């Protein structure tokens, strides 16, 4: 039981996808312009990660070794497209802000990384928990980066404005993403030690 729980909690600190594994940097940098965007992107990735981990752990015993990467990619791309269609249909406002980045989930290394490193060697329950843990860790990291960038860049948190006027615009744009990510990496590794 403790073992199962550790599958979920390891994503936050020990194997945090953003600050320890440093995977999936493209969506991390691109979507964390505000806290809510980071949170939504994290949840979208979580959804794909859990489903693809389950599917891949189920099919991996029968997939021939030499074609396993193309098969995994097709499976992951299918889930991403399903997510895209469902979001478009039922949450059009979220889709409007994140639409551009949803297809990028396919090439997010975290997903293929977990498929290769975990899902293809473990049963589907553990794989689902692993996906949940890593996904939650990713969501938490993106939200933290989003909060920091939103505070510095727009003077607000989750859209709630506490400073009138503009923030430091650089933090909303790409250079700010790199700076915030860099300093948070330092901070995280300092705390972890």
């Amino acid at each position, binding site marked *: 039981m403790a073992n199962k729980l550790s599958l979920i909690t390891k994503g936050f600190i020990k194997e945090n996808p953003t600050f320890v594994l440093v995977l999936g940097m493209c969506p991390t940098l691109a979507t964390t312009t505000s806290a809510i965007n980071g949170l939504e992107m994290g949840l979208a990735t979580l959804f794909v990660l859990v489903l693809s981990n389950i599917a891949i752990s189920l099919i991996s015993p029968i997939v*021939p*070794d*030499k074609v396993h990467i193309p*098969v995994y990619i*097709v*499976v992951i791309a299918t889930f991403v497209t*399903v997510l895209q269609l*469902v979001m478009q249909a039922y949450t059009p406002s979220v889709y409007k802000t994140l639409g551009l980045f949803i297809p990028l989930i396919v090439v997010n290394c975290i997903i293929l990384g977990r498929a290769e490193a975990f899902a293809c060697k473990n049963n589907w329950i553990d794989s689902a928990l692993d996906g949940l843990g890593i996904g939650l860790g990713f969501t938490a990291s993106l939200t933290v980066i989003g909060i920091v960038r939103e505070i510095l*860049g727009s003077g607000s948190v989750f859209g709630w404005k506490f400073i009138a006027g503009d923030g430091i615009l650089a933090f909303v*744009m790409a250079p700010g993403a790199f700076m915030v990510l860099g300093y948070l990496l330092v901070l995280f590794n300092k705390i972890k030690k």
Partner: protein
Amino acid sequence: MAAKSNLQNMALCLTLTCLLCSAILGMVYAVTKAPIDAAAEAAAKAAIAEVLPEGGDISEAKTADLDGTTYEYYEEMGGGQVVAYAVKSSTNGFGGNLSLMVGVLPDGTIYNTKVLSHSETPGLGAKCTSDKKFTSQWNGFAKDKKLAVAKDGGDVDAITASTITSRAYTLAVSQARDLIKMLDPDATTGASLFDK
């Protein structure tokens, strides 16, 4: 671990995976098509309603050409005559296509505007949807005001640090107004005579 590879099982496995995945996608597409269309239509209707005065009957989409571009527009009827137009107008912004719904009264006054889609920079040009100072000036933009940003000698207050987006936005509005001037020349002259 994974099965040993040979040509047959590789080909079979890839074919089956693709078939299965296409089937799943086809099903999801079929299920979500209606809600997606409905959501897009609702968004378009809401945008039209937002840029027009309340109370009239809004017509079906019509099209008209101006300077080689085809525009889609809607007429709002009240008391047997057109009381306002909503024009879908697009230009190139800073990051790509900037598409607006512009409500224009027959005399050339801008009633209101709404962004349909944009790809402007978050935190800069993207403020064209949220910056109150910028968006509210379109609410009743008088017909004798000059449609150009202040930097270019006009009467439009640009978004701070986003002149290109503001210019594109202004251009889209002025395209809409030009189209209405072309469609409704009598009403324009009539209204301006009345104003004198």
